[in-house]
């Protein structure tokens, strides 16, 4: 199987909503057994097409004799990767983009399909970019999402939409219990990986499965975004304290909380999924962390034994993920406004339950990886209206400004005299 074929198979699956792009891609690449370079190319095609889908589709429909909805998902996916290569990738010669797509069309369509794909892609190659009529199509975001972002961020709207279509840097957090940012950077560089440290967050050039690295196996780092890092940092746990991370898997923030206390706090990690508990445990073990206890628990309900016991609670709640579109572009096509309504209810219940674990002078940190104010400041505003808490501060990180995930972080206490 070629990288293009693998990409088309993944796109076909995601288009039918059978799988998320990241898991479908992982599975397909594992089966295909391609070189690292081909893996990177297949990944580029899948994410590129998902990122720019509406714009690519508009271009296809402009040059196509047939309506898009009359095409099979296979042919449509083949056309999409073809157009993506022609118009978004300078590194691929046009003849290669066209010929390889025609080959795939022969395999996944009938005789006429190959001719049709050939005709459309030749026309695109000759005609090139065309004027894209709407902001939704230009930035490939569904209308509801464009409306939401533009009404909430009128001055930054186009910058946010454009940033969502860029590729996020690959970052990891240094395990300061085992090494230092400097030493870890040196170690990466010895293996030919470019590494730049910004405090405890290191940006690296490595593509693919980071867990294969020796440094990973030795527990010297954990993949983590800077936004997530700053959310856990706001908790600031001290040795001897009890900290609860209520939505903990896979444990990036959990292990950070332990690390920040020099592995001397007691960190309780809840997650609703039993299979994710072992993931948290494995991460803690790999990193040489002993202060984490992971438990299966639904954060929207109250675990009685911890009521009134915690010095701090981190509620990094499930959210729409609209701050991580760079990493998971299919969020644009899979999330809907009604999903978000449901998720806001869940966020409110989790925050209310989280507050119950605090001692009287406890600190509560609420975070999400979305830029949607309805899930962020609106949720914390609603919370402080109903509970005797106050916002110490809140911060919205934005990919185009902070070059990290679009995290929202709010620190809450009840300590005004």
């Amino acid at each position, binding site marked *: 199987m070629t990288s293009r074929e693998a990409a088309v198979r993944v796109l076909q699956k995601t288009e039918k909503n059978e799988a998320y792009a990241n898991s479908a891609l992982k599975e397909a690449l594992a089966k295909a057994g391609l070189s690292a370079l081909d893996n990177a190319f297949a990944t580029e095609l899948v994410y590129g097409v998902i990122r720019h889908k509406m714009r690519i589709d508009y271009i296809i429909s402009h040059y196509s004799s047939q309506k898009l909805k009359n095409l099979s998902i296979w042919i449509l996916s083949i056309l999409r990767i073809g157009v993506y290569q022609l118009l978004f990738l300078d590194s691929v010669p046009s003849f290669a983009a066209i010929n390889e797509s025609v080959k795939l069309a022969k395999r996944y369509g009938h005789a006429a399909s190959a001719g049709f794909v050939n005709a459309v892609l030749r026309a695109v190659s000759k005609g090139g970019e065309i004027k894209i009529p709407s902001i939704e199509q230009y930035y490939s975001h569904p209308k509801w999402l464009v409306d939401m972002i533009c009404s909430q961020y009128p001055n930054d709207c186009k910058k946010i939409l454009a940033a969502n279509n860029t590729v996020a840097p690959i970052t990891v957090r240094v395990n300061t219990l085992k090494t230092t940012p400097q030493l870890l950077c040196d170690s990466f560089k010895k293996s030919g990986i470019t590494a730049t440290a910004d405090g405890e967050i290191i940006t690296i050039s490595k593509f693919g499965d980071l867990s294969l690295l020796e440094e990973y196996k030795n527990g010297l780092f954990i993949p983590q975004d800077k936004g997530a890092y*700053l959310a856990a940092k706001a908790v600031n746990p001290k040795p001897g304290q009890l900290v609860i991370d209520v939505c903990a898997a896979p444990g990036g923030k959990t292990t950070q909380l332990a690390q920040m206390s020099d592995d001397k706090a007691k960190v309780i990690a809840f997650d609703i999924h039993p299979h994710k508990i072992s993931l948290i445990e494995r991460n803690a073990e790999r990193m040489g962390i002993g202060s984490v206890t992971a438990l299966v628990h639904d954060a929207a309900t109250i675990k009685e034994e911890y009521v009134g016991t915690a010095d701090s609670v981190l509620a990094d709640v499930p959210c729409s993920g609209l701050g991580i579109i760079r990493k998971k572009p299919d969020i644009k096509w899979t999330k809907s406004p009604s999903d978000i309504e449901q998720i806001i209810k869940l966020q409110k219940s989790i925050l209310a339950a989280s507050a119950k674990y605090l001692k009287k002078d406890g600190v509560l940190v609420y975070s999400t990886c979305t830029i949607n104010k309805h899930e962020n400041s609106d949720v914390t505003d609603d919370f402080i209206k109903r509970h005797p808490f106050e916002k110490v501060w809140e911060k919205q990180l934005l990919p185009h400004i902070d070059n990290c995930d679009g995290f929202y972080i709010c620190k809450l206490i*009840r300590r*005004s005299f």
Partner: protein
Amino acid sequence: MAIRNILKIGDDALNKKCRNVAKIDGRILTLLDDMAETMRQASGLGLAAPQVGVLRRVVVIDTGDGLIELINPKLTETSDETIDDIEGCLSVPGKWGYVVRPKTATVRALDRHGKEFEMTGEGLLARAFCHELEHLEGNLFTEKVSRYCDPDEIEPKEGSEE
């Protein structure tokens, strides 16, 4: 009972030293009731009389274990051990900062019946005692803040002082 207006930083009453209550009369009892209601309505953990514009040595506190009323309170003992932690003030809305406070503090005061009592608080309650008694001296917590809490707490801007 009535909700009173909480004065905000900049108001002269917050900078004045308060006088002792000479006689616990109806006006003082009403003041105690109003202060408790005002404190609860504002989600505060404590309130001192000057914060509602009355320059008398009267304090109410509720850190979660019930209402404490203090008339003419004095700190009699504080621990050497301290805690550096976040606090805020109902008279300084929107600002929180780190203040070093004794881990435990003991106050002697009169209750609403004029009976003297002594009480020791730890952690949050010790912090509340210290904060409120400073209000009675005309001092605000802002004078003791070592650093304010804001988003820079997680990511200090380059060149900012630690």
